[in-house]
């Protein structure tokens, strides 16, 4: 479990996160949603330590990450996998070398053991046999899946995904969402997904945190978000005509 306690963050005097308190549960896909520019990615970067918080604490299974020295933080970071919005694969390395990188850096596995792990991870994301390709030779969807394979290569306890569906078609997005949901359950990870994609909310939103104006505005699950009366959430969830139509059908059914 990851606990966020009273987290505050500002940039150049502008408050971006105000007093955020939340728990991200183990074995579930925890979504952070909200409109662009509301502080979702900043919160995620604060949690993983890419940004230092101004106030508050981040706890990974009770371990206070905020007060740790760099060396102690690296030990926790070895338990974190992250899929970046732009994937961030190392473009000078092949798919296999990308996935193998954390293994060579942090484990004492033999070459054979590492190869087995790479093959397992690639198989898990349905990319068996693509070991020798370079990231530039892969499609956007494939790159996301390679990113997930690299993120899970160290068998992490915590998985962060920043906009995993950005730039992907709806069908591929569903594949990626399904993959995130499956591996979360399979490896019993604490998964945090930052998204503003309503399809993802419906598909995998087991626990949802809605951020608005840098504050925790609402939290719940995928069922409760569709029935809430919170005006900010309504304007976010039912922004498109299609979703408005769905809402009116749902309301008709209820009456």
């Amino acid at each position: 479990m990851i606990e966020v306690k009273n987290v505050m963050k500002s940039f150049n005097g502008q408050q971006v996160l105000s007093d955020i308190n939340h728990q991200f549960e183990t074995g579930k896909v925890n979504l952070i949603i909200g409109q662009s520019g509301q502080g979702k990615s900043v919160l995620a970067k604060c949690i993983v330590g890419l940004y230092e918080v101004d106030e508050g604490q981040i706890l990974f299974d009770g371990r206070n990450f905020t007060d740790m020295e760099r060396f102690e933080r690296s030990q926790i970071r070895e338990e974190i996998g992250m899929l970046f919005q732009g994937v961030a694969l190392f473009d000078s390395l092949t798919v296999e070398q990308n996935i193998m990188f954390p293994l060579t850096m942090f484990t004492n596995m033999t070459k054979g053991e590492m190869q087995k792990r790479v093959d397992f991870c690639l198989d898990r994301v349905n990319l068996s046999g693509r070991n020798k390709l370079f990231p530039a030779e892969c499609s956007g969807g494939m790159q996301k899946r390679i990113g997930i394979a690299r993120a899970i290569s160290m068998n992490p306890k915590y998985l962060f995904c920043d906009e995993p569906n950005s730039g992907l078609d709806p069908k591929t997005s569903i594949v990626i969402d399904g993959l995130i949901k499956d591996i979360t359950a399979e490896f019993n990870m604490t998964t945090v997904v930052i998204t503003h994609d309503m399809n993802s909310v419906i598909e995998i939103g087991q626990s949802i945190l809605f951020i608005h104006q840098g504050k925790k505005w609402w939290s719940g699950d995928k069922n409760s978000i569709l029935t809430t009366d919170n005006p900010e959430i309504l304007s976010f969830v039912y922004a498109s005509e299609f979703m408005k139509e769905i809402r009116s059908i749902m309301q008709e059914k209820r009456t």
Partner: protein
Amino acid sequence: MKLLQNIGKYTLMLTMVFTKPKKWKIFLSRLINELENIGISSLPIVALMSTFIGGVIALQTASSMSNPLLPKYTVGYITQSSTILEFSPTIISLILAGKVGSNVASEIGTMRVTEQIDALEIMGVNSLNHLVLPKIIAAILFFPVLIIFSMTLSMLGGWMALMITDLTTTETYVLGLRAFFNPFHITYALTKTVVFGFLIVSVSSFYGYYVKGGSINVGQASTQAVVSSSVAILVANLILTQLLLLS
């Protein structure tokens, strides 16, 4: 004020760079790659520049030798001393600041804006140590090799130019090369080279590592890296000359 801030930030960066690598095997593998990227790939440009400029130095000196009191071997002597003292260590380093500096800044800068550096940090890797240390060590190790190569080719270029134009004989030229030769000048040149190599790579890494924004900013950082490392070379050249030759 900004300059002082940058110097402080640069010093802090170096404290992160010069730490023990997590895995020596990975460090050595990266070092070998960097020796190729920074060193071996620079051989053609160094060869071209050195041969031609060596030729020009010899021809210019020969064309100015109107005074009959000057011995004929002066052409070789001036080619040797200007090559060893200044042309090879300083001018070639300035050229390498353009080639290597822009390459380092744009490579690291692109890694920064595409979140590859964040990915390293998230994994728990000291990204500065992982990315920059092998580049600095490669430059420190290989720049002296490049400069010795440059000195040799420059003097050879001078000889070829003189032979083609028939301005002197091989014996006279070689006599000039050997005249008043001071082995300490080689030590002085190589010391400068090591310092220049360090400055080029570390300053360029600094601009690449702390870039913010997108491709335009990476381009600007690359230009800034070349300008700043060239200025750093000129300042260091003055200080080292004062310290090594005149004190």
